[in-house]
C-alpha cells in the first residue's frame, strides 16, 4: 500500500518537474524566436524596394524624395552617426572619470546619493529628456553657442541631438563602468599601492589596463543603445533630410525617420518598404554591435579567470 503510494507520488513529482522544465525552456525559446521573427519580418517587408533598387544605391545616395520614388538613406545614416558620435565623445570621459571616482575614491555616503540619482536618470522616460532638451539645450545653442560659430541656427541641431542623447546614455555608461571597475580584485590595487604607487597611478596603470577590453565592450553596448534612441533625439535634432555640414545643422537620424513617417502616406509605392528597410538597417547594426560586445566580454572572462 505505502509502496504504491510512494510510487504514484514520485511519478507525479517527476511529471511536474518535467513540465516545469519544458515550460521554462519554451518560454526562453520565445525570446530567441522573437528576435528571428522580427528580423525576418523586416527583411520580407523590405524586399520590394530591394528588388527595385540596388542596396548600394539606397545606402550611398543622398536624395530622399518619396513622392518621386527616390529613396537615398545616406542623410539618415549620417545623421544617426553624427548624433551618436557626439554623444559618445562627450560622455565617455565624463562617465569614465565619474565611475573611477565612485569606485576608487568616493566614501560610501557619497555613493548613497549618487547611485539613486543615476537610477532616476536612467529611469526617466525619454520624452522628458526631449522636452528638457527643447527647453534648455535648444535655446542655449541658438542664443549663446551658435552665434560664435555660424550666422544663424535654430538650435534644433545635430549638436543638440548629441548632447541630449549623451545625457540619456550617461547613466548606463556610468553603471556599466562602475560594475567593470568593481570587478577588479582589491588585492590587485593593494599590490600596486604597496609598491608605493599613488591612487591615480594605480587607477591608470593597473585598473584601467586590466579593464580596457571591458570598457570597449561597454562603449559598444551603449552605442547600440544610442543608435536606437528615438523620441528625445527626434525632438531636438531638427529632422532635416540632408547630410549635416556642421554641428549647427539639423539632421535626421534613422529612428526619427521611422517614428515621424510610418503610418502616413503609406499609399505611396515603395514608401512603406523603404521605411522597413530603415528599420532593418537599425536592426542589423544594433544586432552586430551587441554581438561584438558579447564576444569581447566573453574573451575577457576567458583570459582573466
Amino acid at each position, binding site marked *: 500500500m505505502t509502496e504504491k503510494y510512494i510510487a504514484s507520488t514520485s511519478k507525479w513529482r517527476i511529471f511536474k518537474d518535467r513540465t516545469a522544465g519544458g515550460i521554462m525552456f519554451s518560454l526562453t525559446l520565445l525570446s530567441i524566436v522573437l528576435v528571428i521573427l522580427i528580423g525576418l519580418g523586416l527583411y520580407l517587408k523590405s524586399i520590394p524596394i530591394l528588388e527595385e533598387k540596388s542596396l548600394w544605391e539606397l545606402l550611398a545616395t543622398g536624395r530622399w524624395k518619396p513622392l518621386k520614388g527616390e529613396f537615398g538613406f545616406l542623410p539618415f545614416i549620417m545623421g544617426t552617426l553624427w548624433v551618436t558620435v557626439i554623444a559618445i565623445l562627450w560622455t565617455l570621459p565624463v562617465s569614465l572619470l565619474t565611475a573611477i571616482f565612485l569606485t576608487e575614491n568616493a*566614501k*560610501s555616503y557619497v555613493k548613497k546619493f549618487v547611485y539613486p540619482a543615476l537610477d532616476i536618470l536612467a529611469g526617466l522616460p525619454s520624452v522628458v529628456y526631449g522636452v528638457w532638451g527643447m527647453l534648455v539645450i535648444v535655446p542655449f545653442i541658438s542664443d549663446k553657442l551658435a552665434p560664435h560659430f555660424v550666422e544663424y541656427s535654430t538650435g534644433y541641431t545635430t549638436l543638440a541631438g548629441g548632447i541630449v542623447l549623451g545625457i540619456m546614455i550617461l547613466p548606463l555608461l556610468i553603471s556599466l563602468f562602475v560594475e567593470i571597475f568593481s570587478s577588479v*580584485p582589491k*588585492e*590587485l*590595487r*593593494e*599590490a*600596486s*599601492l*604597496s*609598491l*608605493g*604607487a*599613488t591612487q591615480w*597611478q594605480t587607477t591608470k*596603470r*593597473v585598473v584601467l*589596463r*586590466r579593464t580596457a577590453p571591458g570598457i570597449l565592450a561597454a562603449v559598444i553596448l551603449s552605442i547600440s543603445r544610442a543608435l536606437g534612441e528615438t523620441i528625445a533625439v527626434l525632438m531636438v535634432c531638427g529632422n532635416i533630410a540632408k547630410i549635416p555640414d556642421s554641428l549647427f545643422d539639423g539632421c535626421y537620424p534613422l529612428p526619427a525617420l521611422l517614428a515621424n513617417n510610418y503610418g502616413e502616406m503609406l499609399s505611396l509605392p515603395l514608401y512603406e518598404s523603404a521605411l522597413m528597410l530603415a528599420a532593418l538597417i537599425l536592426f542589423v547594426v544594433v544586432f552586430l554591435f551587441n554581438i561584438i560586445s558579447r564576444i569581447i566580454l566573453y574573451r575577457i572572462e576567458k*583570459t*582573466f579567470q
Partner: protein
Amino acid sequence: MKPILSNFISAKIEPFVSENDEKSAAFVPSRKFHRKTEISDISVNGLDVYIQNQHILKNINLQIPDKQITCIIGPSGCGKSTLLKTFNRLLDTNEGVKITGQVLVDGEDIYSRHSDLTHIRRKMGLLSQRPCPLPMSIYENIAYGCRIHGIRNKKKLNAIVEYYLKAAGLWEEVKDRLHTPAVRMSIGQQQRLCLARGLAVEPQFILADEATSALDPISSKTIEELFVKLKEEYAIVLVTHTLRQALRIADYVIFMYMGEIIEAGPAQQVFKNPQQELTQKYLSGAFS
C-alpha cells in the same frame, strides 16, 4: 659597493645589452635612497584599531627586530593580518577604520599627518596571501614599481628586472618569456614574481601575509628558503597560521589572541618555554 644580495645569487650578473657598453654594467641596488639608519626598525606603541566600531586590535606594543624573521601566529580572526596591514597603511584604505596609537618606522610616526604614504609603502614590500600579478608581462611586473618611482632608463630597468628575478630564483625559469603575461605562470612562480616585484622598489621590510598558504608544498618550501636568505638584508614579518612553518623559520615570535598580543619573544624561548597559559595551550594544539 658590493651587491647586497650577491651572497645568494650564484650566477654573476652579466651586462644585459652589450659587453662593450660600460653603462649597462651589473646592477647594484642602492638603498641609501631612504635608509636613514643602518637598522630598520618598526616599533608599535599603544596601537588600537577599530573597524566598523569593533575593537579589532587592543593596545598593541611591540618591536620588530631587523634582519630576522618575525612570525605572527595565532588562531584565525585574531587580528594578525590587520596588524600587518597597519604597518604599511593599507588598512586605512578601507572605510570605517579608526586607528589610534603610534607606529614608528625608523623613528617616524607613519600615522602622523605629514607622513608620505607612498614613501612608507615603498619601504614595506607586501606579499599577499594569494599571488596577485599585475595585468602585464613578467618584465613589466618588476619594472612597474621602478617606473612609478621615476626610473625610465631602459638598460637600468633591464638590469633591475634580471637582478631581482634572480634574487627570487625565477630568472632561469622565465628568462625566455619575459614579455609574456604574468598570469600564465604557475601559482608558485607568480608568488615569487610578486616577491621580486616587491624587492625591486628596494624596501627595508618584507611583510608577508600567509604568503605560502595558497601554494603547493614545494613552492612554499622555495618561498621559505628565500625568506631565510633574504633575512640577511631585510626585516621580515610573516603572518602564518601554520605553526610548523613558524617553528621552521621564525627567529622571533609574536602570539596573538583576540586582538591582543599574548606573548612575544625569541622563537626558542616562546616555543620551548612559553610563559603564558594561552600560548602553551595554542602550541599544544588545544585550539587553533
